[in-house]
């Protein structure tokens, strides 16, 4: 991945050492941030616990209410946990990796003009943005999501073969790339506007919530929109249907369950193409 950041013509000769160099640079940036955040220990611990608590409260509310109803249109708590855990773990890992592209963070750099410093430094731009907001406090959410996912795998009766494990891992990777792409698009929009970026929240946070539950509970319109117009259903819903041995909707072929690792990177590639347009458009603040 780091190879693609190489924009310096002089290093084209040795792609491997350049990739290693850039990866090293990236981890240096992450380490610097992690260390600065860990200085205030109490503050860090509170933030870390607090950010997991919101997810915990949300999931707990659902889990506490479900017994009164029996099931969510035929889905048990374990089966929903599988979807919920997959979406949450992918989203929080994406948040860790792509936080720098998140519109609120990036727009601050664009508005204040500090985006110029990124452009001036002798390091690839995207690598610097990737390394510009690493919120270590989200690590608690990773553990929580892993716990929910583990419960889901155990309680749903999903048969965990190497094939299904690979399918779920591919689903997570696809989701990271997909939602990362949405963050990049949202961030790129801030080159033009500092308002109305909130519309992206519908797609990012809304999309995350949407795929946390089985998509057959939504009406036809919503489900088809998020299958064929915005290919969110391919990310985790279809893989989970397959793992649980349920048929795919609309008579889709089994192949559709395997497309997450393709759909996600395609979205990310499109997002970065848009990003390049945005960066070219950026003119600084004149300060």
């Amino acid at each position: 991945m780091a190879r693609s950041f190489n924009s310096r013509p002089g290093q084209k000769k040795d792609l491997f050492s350049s990739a290693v160099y850039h990866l090293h640079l990236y981890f240096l940036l992450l380490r610097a941030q992690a260390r600065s955040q860990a200085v205030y220990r109490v503050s860090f611990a509170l933030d870390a616990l607090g950010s997991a608590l919101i997810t915990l409260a949300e999931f707990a509310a659902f889990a506490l209410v479900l017994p009164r109803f029996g099931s969510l249109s035929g889905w048990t708590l374990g089966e929903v946990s599988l979807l919920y855990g997959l979406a949450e773990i992918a989203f929080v890992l994406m948040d860790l990796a792509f936080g720098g592209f998140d519109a609120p963070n990036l727009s601050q750099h664009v508005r204040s003009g500090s985006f110029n410093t990124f452009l001036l430094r002798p390091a690839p731009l995207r690598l610097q943005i990737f390394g510009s907001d690493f919120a270590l406090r989200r690590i608690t959410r990773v553990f929580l999501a892993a716990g929910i996912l583990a419960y889901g795998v155990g309680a749903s009766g999903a048969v965990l073969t190497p094939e299904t494990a690979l399918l779920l891992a591919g689903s997570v990777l696809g989701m990271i790339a997909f939602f990362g792409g949405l963050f990049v698009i949202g961030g790129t929009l801030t080159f033009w506007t500092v308002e109305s970026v909130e519309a992206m929240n519908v797609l990012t946070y809304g999309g995350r919530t949407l795929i946390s539950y089985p998509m057959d509970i939504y009406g036809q319109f919503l489900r088809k929109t998020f299958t064929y117009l915005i290919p969110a259903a391919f990310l985790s819903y279809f893989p989970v249907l397959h793992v649980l041995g349920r048929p795919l909707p609309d008579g889709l072929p089994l192949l559709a369950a395997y497309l997450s690792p393709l759909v996600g990177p395609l979205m990310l590639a499109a997002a970065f193409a848009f990003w390049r347009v945005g960066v070219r458009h950026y003119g600084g603040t004149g300060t």
Partner: protein
Amino acid sequence: MRAALKPTPRPSSPRLNAPLYASVARLGFRRQFAYPQAALWGLITNLFFGVLRISVLVALFGSKPQVAGYTVQDAITYTGLTQAFIMALSLFGWTDFMRTVHRGEVASDLLRPHNLLAFWAAQDAGRAVGQFVLRGLPMLALFALIWGATFPAGFTGWLLTTLSLLLAWACGFAFRFLVNCAAFWSPDAVGFGRFAWAVLGLGSGFLMPLAFFPQWFQGVLAFTPFPSMMNTTVEIWLGVTTGPEAWAGLAVQFGWALLLSGVAAFVLSRGLRRLEVAGG
């Protein structure tokens, strides 16, 4: 300090300068209308999440006509109400007062001839009404148009609901202010607030109607002020709670509002005693 600057009523004065607080509330109201475009997008986001929440609730109900006193239609109206109250009742958190303490702006507020708690209450009341008009009413109208959300029944229904909503705001404000007072003791008050807002979301019935929770959990929540911050109002609106039960609910809300306001005033006075603001 204040008395030396101006011969106006001291903060502990029982006399309330009503016109002053009325204009503070009016300004708090008007401030909400500064960014109409952002409000529109916020409305769209809230509506989308409303659709998702309705889908989950309707799927949970399945073919059951009624669960814990709620019909499917009640559950839909519940969703509309909670989505409408997000901003007015600051269900996702509120850190305005905290910020003035951390930045030291509280010092200039203290120089003014008013009671700090009453000043913030007035400002927040104006903010709440503004947000209810800007975000709440359109949301309710959309829910009524699209999903046939219902409204309180008759004059008594409206009276009880209105009183309950005012008390829910009062309870919520006192609680939020209390949480913000943590800023006097800690620079990490924002992190502390995250706990409070997560508990508020669960306990006030924002995430799920409290009636759907297991008995033991409802029993625990009954000892806390959180149901008074929204759930009581929603149940009175829906008519799930009526008659003497509704009046009892109002009494509980009133009691919590008084108690929390008292605690907030006490904690504020303790906090102000240890407040130090660097000049500059």
